[in-house]
């Protein structure tokens, strides 16, 4: 895994905030050590000089801690908000978890009373990303001469699909197995494909493939699951990345202490992975997830 690059906006926001807090330290020092009584003013300035140094050091500590905590919480809440409508009801979806961590999480989930779960391999997406959609969306995209599928989704996306352009998963199934897809994307036994360039996100190629509906939950789970050793994976250059997406489908049915245990296990085993818990079916938003709408 490469080094994580801090976006310039985050870096500038950090530096600006730190500078403001530094300025506040000096301003407070000047204001609080002023006195009309000369003796008191001198005493205060003399005594407060090391306090100013302490304040400047503490400013870095407090600012950095608060910035990180607020930023992480904000990102987590934003991810939850954007993914909840698409995640299978009552599930906990973990994306980008290693195979070993997935095995351990799955074992602990079952030890704590959970049963239904699905997991899919994720392909390497450093050069290009393959996404599945309907053949109609691909047709609209080509006919309109569009540069971004988002330009045609309003017109052509299937109304019943929560994720009209969805990600891809790899299975260990037989090479000859027909790819399994989100049934809401399937039309006349076929689905459409977009191949995006990374970085940039321009569409490099489009295609169609024969597929069959995948039983079980869909939503923000991979929209198409292909055998890692199959012809489709070879044709589109899909290589296993070693990470997986894991959906614990009965997570909300676990007692609260077991849910807390699983969240703890998740932090311990896969803190870098994205995770999102959905509300149980019938709740305010009955779906959730991490990978989100569109290109995932």
């Amino acid at each position, binding site marked *: 895994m490469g080094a994580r690059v801090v*976006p310039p*906006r*985050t870096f500038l*926001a*950090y530096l*600006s*905030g*730190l500078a*403001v*807090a530094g300025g*506040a*330290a000096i301003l*407070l*020092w000047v204001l*609080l*050590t002023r006195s009309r009584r000369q003796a*008191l003013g001198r*005493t*205060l300035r003399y*005594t*407060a000089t*090391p*306090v*100013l140094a*302490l*304040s*400047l*050091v*503490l*400013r870095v*500590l*407090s*600012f*950095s*801690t*608060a*910035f*990180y*905590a*607020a*930023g*992480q*919480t*904000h*990102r*987590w*809440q*934003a*991810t*939850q*908000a*954007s993914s909840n409508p698409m995640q299978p009801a009552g599930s906990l979806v973990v994306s980008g978890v290693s195979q070993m961590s997935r095995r351990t999480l799955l074992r602990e989930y079952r030890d704590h009373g959970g049963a239904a779960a699905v997991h899919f391999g994720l392909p390497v997406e450093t050069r290009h990303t393959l996404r599945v959609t309907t053949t109609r969306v691909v047709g609209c995209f080509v006919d309109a001469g569009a540069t971004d599928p988002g330009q045609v989704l309003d017109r052509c996306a299937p109304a019943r699909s929560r994720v009209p352009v969805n990600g891809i998963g790899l299975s260990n199934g037989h090479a000859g197995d027909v790819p399994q897809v989100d049934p809401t994307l399937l039309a006349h036994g076929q689905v459409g494909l977009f191949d995006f360039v990374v970085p940039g996100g321009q569409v490099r190629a489009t295609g169609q493939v024969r597929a069959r509906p995948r039983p079980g939950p869909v939503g923000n789970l991979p929209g198409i699951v292909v055998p890692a050793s199959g012809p489709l994976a070879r044709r589109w250059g899909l290589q296993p990345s070693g990470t997986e997406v894991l959906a614990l489908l009965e997570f909300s049915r676990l007692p609260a202490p077991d849910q807390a245990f699983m*969240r*703890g296990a998740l*932090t311990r085993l896969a*803190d870098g992975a*994205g*995770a999102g818990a959905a509300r149980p079916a019938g709740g305010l938003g009955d779906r959730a997830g991490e990978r989100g709408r569109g290109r995932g």
Partner: protein
Amino acid sequence: MIGLANAAAVGGSALVLLVVVAAGQALTASQRDLRQVLGLLGVRRSRRAVLGARLYAIPVGVQGVAVLAALVSAWFAGVHDGSGFGWAWALPALAAAVTCVALVGPFSAVPPGVE
């Protein structure tokens, strides 16, 4: 992700607390002469406490500004979708404020043997 944020907030606050306690003790010890002189001059305890409070108001104020600036900075760096920021960001300032208030007492006390 959220666990990491809370752990960082608690860890950072503990570090802030340690630094404030250590620096506060050092300040109290290093200003022994001043505290002694104030005691000999008969300055009332309430006046001495005001002096200590003015000194410690600097780090308390700076911590408050620092965490609020951190919140605003996190908002600038954020996604602007209405998502919240939690409350863990306030912990370091809270830890510093509580510790500083506790340190005003020892600072305003006259060293033994003077009063």
